[in-house]
């Protein structure tokens, strides 16, 4: 008989018609059980961690999480950015296990506990082709409040300045405004961006833009080919060496925050993030180890 006729004969048999969907369901259930990690061997650390918050801390914690997951196969760590304010809010509400915050905690945040994993600075960045190599504090203030709108007024080309500002709720904005004694409301921006990478891409795409981002992300991208440069502040270059020896004025600790004293997987990961095992990741991302 032809294959076709055999097949049809099989279909015509009643039990085969009910057996096929049942087999399909059984196979699906079995496949789904394969996805769960085997419960017997992994008695130690297992579970899921959710970290949300600062976009400055997120890439660093992402790398640390990858290494941790490699060492502890039963663990899954989920890292999301969204701003330091999101880290605080999510840690408070329990939406995230650990919040990431790129500044010291304020007085009204005393219900949370902070654990520092690195130090970072905030630097003003320009496009590499911009002839300006330094700006005084007053010039930065004037540019950001639109008292000065053309580069030639500060010694550069004759071109309008594109001011890039961070959205409210980002601690990079808060630190920037605090150091330059600006009210966030007084900043008149041409472009408002969310995380550091968007800021770097915006400045890299516009030779007449000025922005401010974390030194870690800026240095990392600059050494990986992004056409940006970091400006010194008051003569101190924006480098990790200057952040480490406190010469660079705008610096901040990168913190992991929790609502209660960390236990179990939380504690394990926070200890891991502060251990000597990950200091090479901290250096790779152009941050400063907290112990220095």
């Amino acid at each position: 008989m032809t294959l076709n006729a055999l097949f049809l004969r099989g279909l015509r048999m009643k039990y085969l018609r009910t057996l096929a969907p049942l087999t399909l369901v059984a196979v699906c259930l079995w496949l789904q059980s394969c996805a769960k990690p085997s419960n017997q061997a992994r008695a130690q650390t297992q579970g899921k961690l959710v970290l949300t918050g600062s976009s400055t801390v997120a890439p660093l914690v992402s790398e640390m999480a990858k290494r941790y997951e490699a060492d502890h196969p039963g663990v899954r760590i989920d890292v999301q950015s969204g701003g330091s304010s999101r880290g605080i809010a999510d840690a408070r509400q329990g939406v995230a296990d650990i919040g990431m915050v790129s500044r010291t905690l304020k007085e009204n945040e005393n219900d949370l506990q902070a654990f520092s994993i690195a130090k970072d600075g905030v630097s003003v960045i320009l496009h590499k082709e911009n002839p300006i190599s330094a700006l005084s504090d007053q010039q930065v203030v004037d540019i950001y409040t639109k008292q000065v709108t053309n580069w030639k007024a500060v010694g550069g080309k004759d071109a309008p300045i594109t001011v890039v500002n961070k959205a409210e709720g980002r601690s990079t904005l808060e630190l920037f405004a605090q150091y330059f004694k600006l009210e966030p409301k007084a900043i008149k921006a041409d472009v408002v961006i969310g995380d550091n990478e968007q800021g770097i891409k915006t400045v890299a795409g516009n030779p007449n833009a000025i922005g401010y981002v974390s030194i870690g992300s800026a240095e990392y991208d600059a050494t990986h080919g992004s056409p940006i440069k970091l400006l010194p502040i008051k003569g101190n270059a924006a480098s990790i060496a200057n952040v480490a020896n406190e010469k660079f004025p705008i610096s901040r600790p990168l913190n992991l925050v929790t609502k209660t004293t960390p236990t179990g997987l939380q504690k394990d990961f926070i200890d891991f993030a502060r251990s000597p095992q990950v200091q090479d990741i901290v250096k790779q991302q152009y941050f400063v180890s907290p112990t220095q």
Partner: protein
Amino acid sequence: MSNSNISFHQRSEAVFIWVLRGLALIAGAIVLLILFFLIWEAIPLLQQIGLSRFLTDPSWHPASNEFNLMPMLTGTLIVMATSVLVATPLGIVSAVFCQYYAPPAIAQLYRRLIELLAGIPSVVYGFWGLVVLVPLIGRLHPPGPSLLAGTLILTLMILPTIALVADATFANVAPEYLKGCAVLGLSRWATIREVIFPAARAGLITGIILETGRAIGETMAVLMVCGNVVQVPNSLFDPVRTLTANIALEMAYAVDNHRSALFVSGLVLMMLIGILVAIAEVLNRGHLYDK
């Protein structure tokens, strides 16, 4: 509008009919639940500061208790209007080309291309816009992220919608019309202009409604290319912030009043969509789903 001349006698169909009713109820209930949730979350702030503050405050600065939604609402409306104005003629013309002027092989290829365009995720459009389009516009006229960038990206995103819907509508026009026109000796363009467009009116309006809905609701792409500055734009090259981009930027960390304000902006968006649907109903005078 229901086809009550279909009668069913078999009992086995009754189960099926009830399952259908249940599923339809769930779908309708979800929409209503979302609406009620929005109203529930928005009411605390509305009760506290009233409706007029959303129109008359100096600006949008939730940290300083200012909640003016007008600049962002204007931004949404302008971006929507300009992109729909550009995309609609382009989409309809490309559908006309595909159906009536292109050789079948090219028409097939073109249709697949448009379908591919429809399937690209909006984040990819936003990324391309940020890395390619915005610097291009910036070289033309700083700063770069602007109303123009948002319009161009949105046009690219909604063009496939109107093109595919128009294409399907044109394919559904009764072939008797075409034959009648041929018999009368009308030219191709005269047929399209005088007979096909009026016959396809309901479908084209549906397509326009769909694309406008997408333009109003698009978040990621406009967030990346529009500049996000809260202001009423004075020129095509000024940055704007749309209501959707605002919610995406601030939702994660908004608390109390700020959060309620974002829900109010969500309600405004739903109202816009409601107005859109009402306009569709009026334009079609109830014949939207008739053949």
